[in-house]
C-alpha cells in the first residue's frame, strides 16, 4: 500500500464511539478504493475522488470534484461550510458539517444517510489544533456520562492529551497533560480511549 500523505488515525472512545481523525488542512472524500489519496473513504455511490474539504484559516471550504450539493444547492467549484451545513455527495451520501465549539477550528462530519466510512467511524473529526471530548454540547465528541472534558491537541507535530487531574497514557502516570503517540491508550477517572494508527 502506498504511504499516505496525511497522518489520519482512529480515535476509539470507550462507551462513546469510534472516530476518524484527520489532522490535515485538506482532506479528500471519495470511495475507499484509493486509500492513499482519500482521507475519508466512504462506501457510497460516489467517485474515487469526489470532493475536498479545506480548512482555510478559521473557515472551511468544500471543493467539488464531482457533483456536490451544499444546503440543497449545487456547488460550482467552491462552497463555504458553516455549522449545520448539509452536504450531499452524488445522489445519496448525505453529510452534516458541524463546528460545535466556538473557539476551536476543529470540525465534525457526520452522516445523515446510512452510509459509512471505511473503516466504520461514528463521525469524522477534522482536527485543527484541538479536539474536545466531554459531556457538553460544544464538545467535538459528546461523551454523555463523562464528568470532565478531555482535550487532545497538537503542538509542534506532537499530540498531547490534557485533562484535569491524574490519568495514564500507556501505563505511565501523568497529571493534567501528557504526550500521545498514534497508538496510545489513555485511561483516566471515568474515561478511557485509545488511538489507532491507520
Amino acid at each position, binding site marked *: 500500500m502506498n504511504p499516505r500523505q496525511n497522518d489520519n488515525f482512529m480515535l476509539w472512545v470507550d462507551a462513546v464511539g469510534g472516530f476518524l481523525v484527520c489532522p490535515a488542512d485538506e482532506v479528500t472524500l471519495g470511495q475507499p478504493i484509493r486509500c492513499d489519496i482519500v482521507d475519508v473513504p466512504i462506501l457510497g455511490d460516489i467517485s474515487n475522488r469526489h470532493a475536498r474539504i479545506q480548512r482555510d484559516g478559521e473557515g472551511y471550504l468544500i471543493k467539488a470534484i464531482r457533483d456536490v450539493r451544499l444546503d440543497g444547492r449545487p456547488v460550482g467549484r467552491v462552497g463555504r461550510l458553516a455549522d449545520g451545513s448539509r452536504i450531499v455527495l452524488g445522489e445519496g451520501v448525505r453529510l452534516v458539517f458541524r463546528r460545535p465549539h466556538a473557539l476551536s477550528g476543529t470540525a465534525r462530519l457526520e452522516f445523515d444517510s446510512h452510509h459509512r466510512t471505511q473503516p466504520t467511524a*461514528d463521525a469524522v473529526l477534522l482536527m485543527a489544533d484541538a479536539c474536545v471530548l466531554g459531556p457538553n*454540547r460544544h464538545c467535538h465528541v459528546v461523551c*454523555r456520562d463523562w464528568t470532565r472534558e478531555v482535550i487532545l491537541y497538537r503542538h509542534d507535530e506532537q499530540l498531547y492529551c490534557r485533562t484535569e487531574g491524574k490519568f495514564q497514557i500507556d501505563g505511565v502516570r501523568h497529571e493534567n497533560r501528557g504526550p500521545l503517540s498514534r497508538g496510545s491508550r489513555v485511561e483516566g*477517572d*471515568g474515561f478511557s480511549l485509545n488511538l489507532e494508527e491507520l
Partner: protein
Amino acid sequence: MGKCSTPKTRLNSPMQHKAAAVEPNGRDTMNFSPIEPGDSMAGLPERPAGKFVYHGGSRPLEGYTIKRAIGQGGFGEIYYATSDAGKEVALKLIRRNLDVELRGIRHCLNLKHPNLLALYDIRQDNEGDTWVVMEYASGGCLQDAVADNPRGLPVDKALAWFHGIAAGVAYLHDRGIVHRDLKPGNVFSDEGFVKVGDYGLSKFISCSRRSGQTESVGTVHYMAPEVANGRYGKEIDIYAMGVMLYEILTGRVPFDGESVGEVLMKHLTATADLSALAEPYRGVVGRALEKDPRKRFQSIAEMAAALPSATQGAAGAGMPPGKFTAASAAAIGGMPPPGQEKEVVEARVVDEEPILRMVQDSFEKLRTAWDEANLTTPVKVALLVLGLFVLLAGSGTLIPLAVMLLVVYGGYRVVRMLVLSGQSPDGTATRPTVVQPPPVAQKAAAPPRSSPPRSPPGHRGVDRAQARPGHGQRHPRYRHHYHPHEEAAMALVLKPRRERFAELVGSLLIGSLSALVMCVVVVLLISYHGAVPRPEQCAWLALMSIAGTWAVLIPSKFWEGTLGEAALRRFVMMLVGLGLGAVAFGVASALMVDLPYPRDFPEPSNYQLPDGFYLQGRPLAMAYMACFGTLFLLMRWWRQADPLRVSRLSIWPLVVSTAMAGVVAAAWHFPQPWLPMVAVCVAVSVQLASPWVHPSKRARPRKSRPRKSQPRKA
C-alpha cells in the same frame, strides 16, 4: 485494517476475578490492572483507570481484535471488535462467575430475522470466560433515543421502533422462544432497521442461584408481575412491550421506584397512570399492562394490529427515520430532522417552588465550590470550626431574623399550594394530553409548528449537565435511566446483613468518638464566647451528641441505597427525635443539669413560657421532646449518612442543622445555644462516621464474589 498498537493483554491470573474483597464501608478493594507491570514506570496505578477490562488492541479471542468498549451489558461488558479480515462484530463478555449453560442459546444461534440482532458464535477464551460474538448495530439503542427525548419520541418514530420490535419478537414467539429481557437497552437501530438483541441470553445464563437474588433495577422496570412467581410464558414479552411503548411515548416508565422491591410491588399491585397517553395508545398499553396474563393481548400481532402502522417515508415497518448513533444523537441534541414536526408536547412544570429553588441553587453552588475546593478533611474541619464561631458570634441577631423569614416563607408556601391545588400527587401540574395520533393527511399538510414549550437546544445542554452525578436526584425522570449511582445503590441495598451490621457498629463507634471530639470543640467555642459551661453541662452535651449520632446512624443504615418516601422517613425520625428528647430529659435530670439561658439571649421573663413545658424557667420533658422531635422531623438527617452523598464532609448540612436547631429552639423557647450545639456535633459526627463511597468507585462494576453473583444493571 491498519496495524494496531501493541496489544496489551490482561494480567492472566484468573484469581484476579475472585479478589473482589469489599471493605466494610462499601469500597471495592479490587485492584486488578489491565496493564502489564512493566509498562508503568511509576509502579502499579493506585486504582484501575477506566471501567473496562479490555481495551483497544486486545485479542482475547482468536481471530478478533477489540477496538473499543461499547458499554456495560446485563451480564458483562460489550466491545466493538473486528475480525482479522475486517468484519465488525460486537463481543459480549459473560463473566465467568455466573453459571453458564449452553443449552438455551443453541436454539437461538441460528435464528434469522431482519429485526433480530444476529448471533454469530459463542466462544471461550483462555481465561475461561465466555464470549458471545454477535452482529454489531451501528445505530444507538432505544434507551439512548428515549434519553434524548425525555418527553417521548414523536409518534411516527415511536411506531417505527415499536413495529420493528414487534416483528422481531413475533418471530421469536413463533419459534417458541420467550425473550424474557425486553427493554430499551436491548433494542438497537442499525441503518434504519430495528434490531432486538439479547434474546435467549437470559435463559442462557441459568441463574441457578436466582432464588433470593433479584434482577438489577434496570431490568425490573419491564418485568411482568407473574415473573416473580416463576410461572410465565410469552405474555411477559407483551407486558414488556407495553412498558416500552409507554416509555417511548412519554419518556418515562409507568412504574418507577427507588428500589427493586418498590418497583416490583408496583408491577404487582399498582395501576399505571395512562393519562398522558391518548387513544389508541392508552388502550393498547392498558391491555398490555394487565396484571392477569390472560387479559393481555394474546399475541404480538394482535397488539401491533391495534396500533397505527408506522407512518414513515422510508420503506416498510421497522425503519426509524434518521440515524441514531451515540455520537450524532447526542450531538444533535435530539432535534428531529427538519420536515418532521414534534407532536404536541407540553412543558413539564418545574416541581420545585422557584424561590426555594433559587436558594437551593445558590447553596448548591456554594456546596459544589466547597466540595471541589480540594481541601483535605482536617482543613475542612478547621474551616468549619471557624465558621461555627462566626455564626455563634452573630447568632443573637441571626436567629430572630431567620425565624421571621421562615414564617413568611411558610405562609407563602401554603398560599401557593392552595392556589396550585390542581396538582397530581407527584407534584406536577396537570398535564395536557401528550401524544395524539396524527391523522396521516393532516400531518402531511400541516406546516411545521413551532412549539415554544420544546426546550431549545441550549437549555437541553443545561439539562444534561444537570443530570450529572450529584445532581441526579433533582431530575426524577432521569433517575432510573441515568442515576450514576444506581449500581452503587444496588450494592448498598444488597449488602448482606452481617456486613451491614458490622459497618453499623463501626460507624457507631467512630460516631461516638467524633461526637466527643466535636463536643470539646464546641465547648471551647462557647467558652470563648460566653461563660464556661459547667462539667455536668458538658457531660449532657457529650451524651446527647453521641445519642443523637446513634439516632441518625441506625435508621439511616437500614435506608442505605434507597431514597424511600420522605414523609414516612420524616415521621420515623420524628419519633426517634421524641425518644431522644425523652432521653435528653432523663440525662439532664440524672445529672442534675441546669441548662441556663446565656447572657445575650433574651431573658425568659420576656416570653410567656408554656406551663406544661417549663417549670421556673427550666425546661421539662415536654420541652425536650418537642425540640428534638421537631428538629428530627424538619431535617432529612439520613441524607447526611448516605454513602452516596456528594462528599464526605459537606458544609451545607452543618449550616442547615445548626440554623434549624437554633430556630426550633427559639420557637420552643428552649435555652440557647444547647440545641444547635448538639445539632452541629451530630451533623459532623454522622458525616464522619458514615461510610462514604468515593465517586470514582461508584461507576465501576463490582466483580462477583465466588459465592454470590451480583446482578448488574443492564
